[in-house]
């Protein structure tokens, strides 16, 4: 085809050209159906008009005919490769698809043919920010400013672009020029105030502290900066950096503004040369804090800080803590234990608190036992109650890295005692549930939580707790019914609503529950849903790249960008990524897991029925959605969400690229969670199976640098040594580096006899149950002798060993996986060790017990007793 014919095809005669203009404006005004008609009218005469084909394609993608639409757009581009409209359309579709890189490429193409198109430039800038391509961003913003210097936001946009690109001098210059050009700004203009605060921020970051300070002072005095909190905070920070004598007063002003902000006290003390993180230095804070406590008697920070700083031996500590605790218990502050438990890393302080609380209990005992008339006015029955509540928490809590042995039995006694006085306080049931959970009675715990919930059916906090504990007890369906009392009634299921509302708590807990009850497909589905939420949140920033510049909220915008860059360090993501990756690894090691899940033979009739029903419901919900969506399709450009064709996660778990997916999940964590040993272990597990030996051994090195004796690392080192023997077909340099690196982790001499190596490890950690279990697992892989494994596993019941429920359960499942004869013996021993526990019961027994967890409720999960306790949420 020659160029001439192309050109001929592209130019439309007058009438059609008019129609095309109409088509564009119909799209702009979201008149999709009308637009489609117009497009077809043009195409009837000119079926190969590229731009019209693209516009038609674009319209179709918004009308639920995605594939067809995209095909048309591609066809359109082929007919008219030099049209900016064609490329723009393609870019729009890719952008809507969150495919930012491809979209930017299309926009760049489009700009080649229409370099001064404002819309194209603005969209490109947003894409460049999203992709963090700051060099290009500066260029684009420059271009925009040249084209539209009258638009104020173009100035700050360029400054921000320079700033992001690390060029503070230019950023400063641009902002200064902009501020200089401003005229007739009304008083109390919030936009100007924010811009000035941004300017101060640039000055501060570029090291011009006194410049920043004088700008801040002049502009806040003239009331151009109106955000007083920001002024006070920035001022204190600047004066401190300048080591100015005024710094102390500036922190005091900030404390006066809000006496409950810990950071202000920290700032003040740091300026006085006191570091709260250094115990000797911290003591010097006491006189300052005393003064603050006097000035702000209602603020808790000054007193609470003293409790942390003062040594237990100081009589002042006892006096202060007595008042602090007594006041809270009299008032009935439920969080007082959560507040004070941080002091317990000092066991002497723990002891003092215990004595004081027991005293308060004694003193107030009379209030409950004697008749009101005789009671001392100071003594309150509620004080007695909250003291019991406090002490019960005290006895069942184990401060981290201490050897405190929890006394769940005593704790339960206290709670039950409190309950016999006041059976209507939900907090008491919550606590009872928590103690039972710690003792391993997950069913009793769920039952207690449910009782709390029934006491106040309108309270979602109680509902969430009860649901969470049901999940912990493996009762997924019952939990879903409870959650459903507060989720939207038109959602496909309570879980769908919670997923839409981005509840990480729910997804992670339900995922864990599915994992425990042998449904790794659904567990994986939930973990990947968490990942998707983080993808969404990353996408969420997109619109703000334009929005904040228009609103001039620049400092908070920069905070947003940094936050987004470190988003995946969130414990929810880390947790989900590791757990999903573990499942992918398990499936890769044992593909029979997938096979067992996909054959329906093992399903009971009831399960089959439930599955059918769920499928039907899903289809119906989808249809309902469609019907509501088509009605407003003309107004909204949002295409309906694609239907989930894998509600059970069976396709997901059978993915052939599971390990690649796992590697992608973990990848951001190498930078964002490098202190988390589980991250490195997971990275190793994936890498070794993808035959990335150097990455695998490198990950173990990172793990070893965090904790060389970690039980999970021990397992992997032996495993890697064994695997190492099988990697014979490696290229020589890789092989030698791999051997060398592995040697550093586990010396050749030791690996002559891995059995010995394992025995030594066991000896070194003979009192740590997790290490014993690791040694048992290693023994399993080395000799495969069931007897060896059993002999090691039973060490966990040794008198000097600290055993926790989780480890005991893993040990049991190890025995079960070996079809050990001694598994029932283990169950019995564990039961003896964990008195209240229901976790070691045989599965059949547990099933029977499930029935009693929600005994107070009727079958449909609603409380049977009173109407009033049922929340009427829709």
């Amino acid at each position, binding site marked *: 085809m020659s160029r001439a014919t192309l050109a001929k095809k592209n130019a439309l005669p007058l009438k059609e050209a008019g129609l095309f203009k109409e088509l564009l404006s119909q799209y702009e005004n979201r008149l999709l159906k009308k637009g489609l008609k117009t497009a077809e009218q043009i195409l009837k005469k000119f079926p190969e008009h590229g731009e019209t084909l693209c516009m038609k394609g674009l319209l179709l993608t918004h009308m639920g005919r995605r594939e067809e639409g995209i095909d048309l757009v591609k066809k359109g581009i082929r007919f008219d490769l030099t049209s900016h409209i064609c490329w723009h359309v393609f870019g729009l579709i890719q952008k809507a698809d969150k495919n930012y890189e491809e979209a930017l490429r299309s926009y760049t193409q489009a700009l080649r043919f229409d370099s001064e198109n404002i819309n194209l430039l603005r969209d490109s800038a947003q894409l460049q920010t999203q992709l963090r391509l700051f060099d290009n961003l500066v260029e684009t913003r420059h271009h925009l400013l040249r084209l539209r210097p009258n638009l104020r936001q173009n100035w700050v946009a360029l400054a921000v672009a320079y700033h992001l690109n690390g060029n503070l001098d230019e950023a400063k210059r641009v902002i200064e020029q902009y501020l200089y050009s401003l005229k007739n700004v009304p008083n109390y203009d919030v936009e100007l105030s924010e811009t000035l605060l941004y300017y101060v921020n640039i000055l501060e970051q570029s090291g011009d502290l006194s410049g920043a300070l004088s700008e801040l002072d002049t502009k806040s005095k003239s009331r151009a900066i109106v955000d007083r909190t920001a002024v006070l905070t920035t001022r204190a920070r600047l004066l401190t950096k300048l080591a100015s004598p005024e710094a102390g007063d500036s922190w005091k002003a900030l404390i006066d503004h809000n006496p409950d902000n810990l950071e202000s006290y920290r700032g003040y003390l740091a300026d006085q040369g006191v570091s709260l993180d250094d115990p000797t230095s911290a003591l010097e804070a006491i006189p300052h804090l005393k003064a603050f406590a006097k000035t702000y008697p209602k603020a808790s920070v000054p007193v609470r800080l003293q409790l942390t700083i003062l040594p237990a031996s100081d009589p002042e500590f006892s006096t202060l803590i007595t008042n602090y605790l007594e006041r809270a218990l009299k008032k009935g502050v439920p*969080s007082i234990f959560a507040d004070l438990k941080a002091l317990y890393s000092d066991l002497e302080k723990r002891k003092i608190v215990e004595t004081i609380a027991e005293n308060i209990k004694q003193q107030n005992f009379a209030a409950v036992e004697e008749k009101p008339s005789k009671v001392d006015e100071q003594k309150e029955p509620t004080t007695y109650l909250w003291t019991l509540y406090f002490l019960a928490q005290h006895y069942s809590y184990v401060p981290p890295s201490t050897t405190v042995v929890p006394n769940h039995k005593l704790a339960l006694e206290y709670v039950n005692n409190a309950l016999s006085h006041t059976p209507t306080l939900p907090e008491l049931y919550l606590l009872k549930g928590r103690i039972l959970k710690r003792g391993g009675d997950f069913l009793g715990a769920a039952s207690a939580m449910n009782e709390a919930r029934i006491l106040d059916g309108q*309270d979602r906090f109680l509902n969430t707790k009860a649901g969470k504990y049901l999940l912990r007890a493996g009762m997924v369906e019952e939990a879903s019914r409870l959650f459903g009392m507060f989720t939207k009634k038109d959602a496909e299921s309570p879980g769908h609503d919670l997923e839409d*509302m981005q509840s*990480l708590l729910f997804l992670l807990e339900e995922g864990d529950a599915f994992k425990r009850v042998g449904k790794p497909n659904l567990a994986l589905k939930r973990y990947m849903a968490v990942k998707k939420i983080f993808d969404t949140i990353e996408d969420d920033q997109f619109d703000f790249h334009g929005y904040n510049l228009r609103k001039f*909220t620049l400092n908070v915008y920069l905070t947003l960008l940094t936050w987004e860059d470190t988003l995946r360090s969130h414990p929810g993501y880390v947790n989900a990524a590791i757990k999903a990756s573990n499942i992918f690894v398990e499936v890769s090691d044992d593909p029979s897991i997938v096979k067992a899940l996909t054959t329906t033979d093992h399903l009971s009739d009831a399960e089959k029925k439930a599955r059918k029903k769920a499928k039907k419901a899903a289809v119906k919900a989808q249809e309902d959605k469609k019907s509501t969506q088509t009605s407003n399709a003309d107004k909204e450009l949002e295409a309906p969400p694609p239907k989930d064709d894998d509600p059970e996660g069976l396709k997901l778990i059978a993915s052939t690229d599971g390990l690649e997916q796992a590697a992608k999940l973990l990848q951001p964590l190498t930078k964002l969670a490098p202190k988390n040993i589980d991250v490195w272990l997971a990275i190793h597990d994936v890498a070794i199976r993808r035959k990335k030996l150097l990455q695998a051994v490198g990950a173990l090195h990172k793990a070893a640098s965090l904790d060389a004796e970690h039980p999970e690392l021990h397992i992997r080192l032996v495993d890697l040594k064994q695997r190492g023997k099988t990697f014979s077909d490696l290229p020589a340099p890789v092989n030698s580096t791999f051997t060398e690196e592995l040697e550093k982790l586990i010396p050749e001499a030791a690996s002559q006899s891995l059995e010995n190596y394992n025995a030594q490890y066991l000896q070194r950690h003979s009192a740590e149950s997790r290490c014993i279990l690791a040694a048992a697992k290693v023994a399993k892989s080395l000799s495969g002798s069931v007897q060896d494994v059993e002999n090691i596993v039973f060490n966990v019941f040794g008198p000097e060993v600290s055993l926790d429920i989780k480890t005991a359960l893993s040990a049991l499942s190890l025995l079960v996986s070996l079809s050990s004869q001694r598994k029932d013996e283990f169950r019995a021993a564990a039961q003896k060790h964990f008195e209240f526990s229901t976790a070691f019961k045989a599965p059949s027994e547990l099933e029977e017990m499930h029935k009693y967890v929600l005994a107070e409720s009727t079958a449909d999960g609603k409380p049977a007793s009173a109407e009033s306790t049922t929340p009427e949420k829709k």
Partner: protein
Amino acid sequence: MGMQACNLQNLPENYALRFWLYHLMTWPQISFVAEDAKGQIVGYVLAKIEHPSEDDKEAHVHGHVNSISVLRSYRRLGLANKLMLLAQEAMTSIYHAEYCSLHVRRSNRAAIGLYRDSLGFEVAKVEKGYYGDGEDAFSMRLNLQNKNGFIN
């Protein structure tokens, strides 16, 4: 995200993160959180500013509290009260808001008590069937100008 998690655990009215971001990016100065010693968010207030439309001469700039909540386990510390006061102060000093408004479930006696008795809000009107489940809302208001101008 902490605000969002706190909201999901406590209240029936929930929003996707985008909604929270939108408020913080538009009015970064008037929302506040309460944290425990570990920095976990245990309470928050999310607020916005309403500017009157051009043709409505009667209306004034005012603040609106979208959502305020404190975890049940952190009650009786006066956190909601403090959060609300901080938000109100920022609304007045930065945006010169005439008044602060909020919606509350008619049945939520504890919250109404806080707003009316501790903070001085008054019921401006009843909005029938405001909530998703059909429950009525009290639309409550606190005059911010008066409070700072005359009483203090």
